């Protein structure tokens, strides 16, 4: 293929490289120049992890053909401060703690730098607008905006440089503003995530995924792919030497589909080749014959007698049922003056960590299979993989690379096994970097839940009984469902002392994308229902919502839903803090109309507007105040 000679000035140095005519600027920086501080969070212009300056203008390098940057001056995160010190913007990010996983941070620093270069006097609204193209999933934006305002003040000379230094810590670190040790590596783009790592002679892997939700695999023909130049190996379940099966609780998921596929996006085969493009082309040469099976897409259908069976070991499609019983619910409901009954539903949610899944595997000189990945559960992965590849545990090693956001979504060993197999088959290092789309389609989601709720109360607001029935869509594989159901059951009825309760949480198999761990691990779904019921009860009884919670809250000595006696309890203080912070006006929420002082205060999120920088730009007598 004809190459293109790329000349540019990158971070103050002239460079010349042969690149592909279709390379993006992002590829040129990362692959040709090893400037991996510029990340690929989405490859589609949506996230801002790839922001760089081209001739002084900030652009998204994933959307720019490299050829466009021919002859230009490019500045990346690595070039902002040169070697050594950090810029005031970077130091301010360090100071305010504006970096958690750090994956978005190089892009954020670039956007912040651009904002202050474009307008050193930008007010906070304009700063927010100018950072609008960059997404952060963990830090939240408050600390980031705080950092930009701090840097702005230092650059303008309105604040001394000493504000960027670490605060003095007194007697205790608790309550002190302590800078994060790992922040300099993140704000400078130096930290290497799995996709940033390179090894000599490394292959690139790509994965063939199922287009069908539920189907028998009749045959897989990899011969044409295997015969391709630069393809080094193709693997399927046949290459698994040991006991195939992984999962956080039940080991029901094969490394690659075995005999049938259970959800769209399930891995079927993988190719390792000299480069990504060849690996991707090879995927299209793999022929898979399917026989479609009736699918299950609704958890209620999965429970019906005669429903299609997704896993042979679970003919009832049940992943896990967690029952909790306390007291006597019939008696409790009989004592109630008021019984409320309702249904709640929550949806599937993607974690959308900014770092798509990525990893490297290799076999070391002592025949140890090594997997480097941002796994949230390396010890468990190591044990499972040893079984799967039939090796003693001391011949399997997992290295946890920096996690660019996980939130529970990187607990499942959905690709490390394939990497290990390819490394074992080729004896070369193999890397796999998910695309954003692949991450969305193949990784676990938050369980969508349906909750049928029944609550009995006395007229003075005391809960007499609760019956809580949750049905969760576990998707095609068990993953963390069991644990999520346990947590949902344990926390089901909230931090309230309920004498009589009957709780059932169930996760069932369907042919939807598997559900797994996600921040709160089942509690969010349960609390959505419980706290909604508390508010509805307050309305029904004409009570203040804080009041009804105080009447029922667990105090020291209370017995939890699972009959543990509490030795400490803090809900009283939590409620008090929430009540003060929200400037809550006492009373029943639904009878006070519009004249409430606790609404729309300075601490309330204002409706979204844009246009800070075009306000009043046309003439001073008619300032433009409002956009849409």
């Amino acid at each position, binding site marked *: 293929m004809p190459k293109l000679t790329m000349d540019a000035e990158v971070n103050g140095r002239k460079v010349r490289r042969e690149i592909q005519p*279709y390379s993006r600027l992002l590829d040129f920086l990362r692959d040709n120049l090893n400037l991996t501080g510029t990340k690929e969070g989405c490859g589609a212009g949506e996230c801002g992890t790839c922001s760089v300056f081209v001739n002084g203008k*900030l652009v*998204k390098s994933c959307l720019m053909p490299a050829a466009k940057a021919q002859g230009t001056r490019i500045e990346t995160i690595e070039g902002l401060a040169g070697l050594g010190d950090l810029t005031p913007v970077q130091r301010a990010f360090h100071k305010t703690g504006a970096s958690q996983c750090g994956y978005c941070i190089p892009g954020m620093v670039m956007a912040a730098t651009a904002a202050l270069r474009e307008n050193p006097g930008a007010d906070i609204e304009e700063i927010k607008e100018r950072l*609008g193209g960059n997404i952060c999933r963990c830090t939240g934006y408050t600390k980031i905006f705080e950092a930009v305002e701090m840097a702005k003040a230092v650059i303008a000379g309105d604040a001394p440089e000493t504000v960027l230094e670490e605060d003095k810590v007194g007697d205790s670190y608790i309550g002190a503003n302590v800078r994060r040790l790992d922040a300099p590596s993140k704000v400078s783009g130096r930290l290497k995530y799995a996709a940033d790592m390179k090894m000599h002679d490394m292959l690139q892997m790509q994965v063939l995924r199922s287009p069908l939700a539920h189907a028998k695999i009749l045959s897989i023909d990899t011969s044409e792919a295997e015969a391709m130049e630069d393809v080094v190996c193709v693997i399927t379940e046949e290459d698994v030497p040991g006991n195939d099966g992984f999962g956080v609780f039940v080991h029901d998921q094969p490394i690659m589909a075995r005999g049938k596929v259970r959800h769209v996006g399930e891995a079927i085969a993988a190719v390792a080749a000299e480069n990504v493009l060849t690996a991707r082309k090879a995927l299209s040469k793999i022929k898979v014959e399917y026989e479609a099976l009736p699918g299950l897409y609704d958890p209620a259908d999965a429970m019906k007698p005669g429903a299609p069976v997704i896993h042979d070991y679970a003919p009832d499609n049940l992943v896990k049922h967690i029952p909790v019983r306390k007291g006597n619910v019939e008696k409790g409901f009989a004592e109630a003056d008021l019984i409320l009954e309702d249904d709640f539903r929550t949806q599937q949610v993607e974690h959308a960590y900014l770092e798509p899944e990525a990893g490297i595997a290799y076999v070391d000189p002592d025949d140890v299979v090594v997997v480097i990945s941002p796994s949230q559960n390396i010890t468990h992965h190591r044990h499972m993989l040893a079984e799967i590849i039939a090796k003693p545990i001391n011949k399997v090693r997992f290295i946890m690379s920096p996690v660019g956001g996980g939130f529970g979504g990187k607990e499942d060993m959905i690709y490390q096994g394939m990497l290990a197999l390819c490394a074992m088959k080729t004896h070369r290092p193999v890397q796999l970097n998910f695309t954003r789309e692949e991450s969305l389609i193949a990784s676990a989601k938050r369980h969508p839940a349906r909750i049928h709720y029944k609550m009995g109360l006395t007229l003075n607001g005391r809960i007499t009984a609760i019956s809580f029935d949750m049905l969760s869509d576990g998707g095609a594989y068990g993953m963390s469902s069991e644990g999520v159901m346990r947590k949902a059951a344990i926390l089901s009825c909230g931090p309230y002392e309920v004498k009589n309760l009957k709780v059932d949480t169930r996760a069932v198999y369907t042919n939807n994308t598997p559900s797994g761990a996600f921040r709160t691990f089942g509690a969010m779904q349960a609390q959505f229902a419980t706290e909604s019921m508390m508010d509805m009860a307050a309305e029904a009884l004409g009570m203040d919502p804080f009041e009804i919670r105080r009447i029922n809250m667990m105090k020291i000595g209370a017995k939890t839903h699972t009959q543990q006696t509490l030795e400490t309890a803090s809900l009283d203080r939590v409620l008090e803090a929430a009540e003060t912070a929200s400037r809550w006006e006492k009373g029943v929420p639904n009878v006070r109309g519009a004249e409430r002082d606790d609404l729309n205060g300075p601490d309330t999120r204002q409706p979204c507007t844009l246009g800070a920088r075009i306000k009043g730009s*046309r003439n001073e007598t008619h300032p433009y105040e409002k956009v*849409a």
Partner: protein
Amino acid sequence: MLTCDAYHMPGSLTEALKLWSETSDGSRLVSGATDILPWAREGRAGDVHVPELVDVTRIAELDGYAFENGRVRLGARTVYQDFLTDRILMQNLPCMPHCAIWFADDQIRTQASLTGNLVNASPVADGTPAVVALNGEIELARLDSGKIVRRSVPVIDFIEGPGQTRIARDEIATAIILDNASGYGGSFQKVGQRRSLVISIACAAGLVKTDHNGRVFDDVRLAIGGVGPRPIRLTEAEQALKGARISHERIAHVAQTAADTVGSRSRQEYRREVVVNFVRAAIEDALANQPNVTISFEDTEEEAHA
């Protein structure tokens, strides 16, 4: 992933037209690449290989803008960010800054061309209603026996449906020609799921000019996108307001009738509802945005006198 055998960056229009007419089928023109690169990804076109890509952003003739016969001629390289940084464009095309500020983000606007937005012909492209309100035309050039031949097509006709335009295989768009709307108030409405980086569910552009006393509508332009396969100019609503005394009630009434006519063309209940509020807001915002005139609403005045 988008791959190609060759990437060309012609520096002159003649060179570009020649190159373009000689490319093999399936080759594509590229401006900012903000549509074409994300298009070649999973869930959309998937991996795509095209023989050649011809980049138009270094063609000197497509640069800059000029004023001609009461019209503004924008070179095809004009990008969205220009409507937020160039004072002259902001003043003469008053709905464009408001359209631009809701478009993608600063970084994408630096690359994304108005021309690419129109040629891509998405039913929810933000530029379309704004350009249609400005009576926009797109200028297309091709080579005929070595000579550059140009034609102009009104954008409202140019866009025939989703992804469908009247551009011919050998043509390159060279300019967008718009009314000079200096002295008008401009506005833009957009419904999307967040503030930056979001494609509209529906959008609308408004332009308004009143008499000096701010009492009567001299001219009103309204266009909406996202409610059908093609952009819609609300000519009936415009006519109903032209020459009329300005009042909130009249605006609300016109908005309602506009929504009824448009609504019948859109099957989506939500979009139908949005149109009422859009039209009202487009007019009111444009009124507030008109330079050097204080608007006197008939109904507010009556209240003041009552």
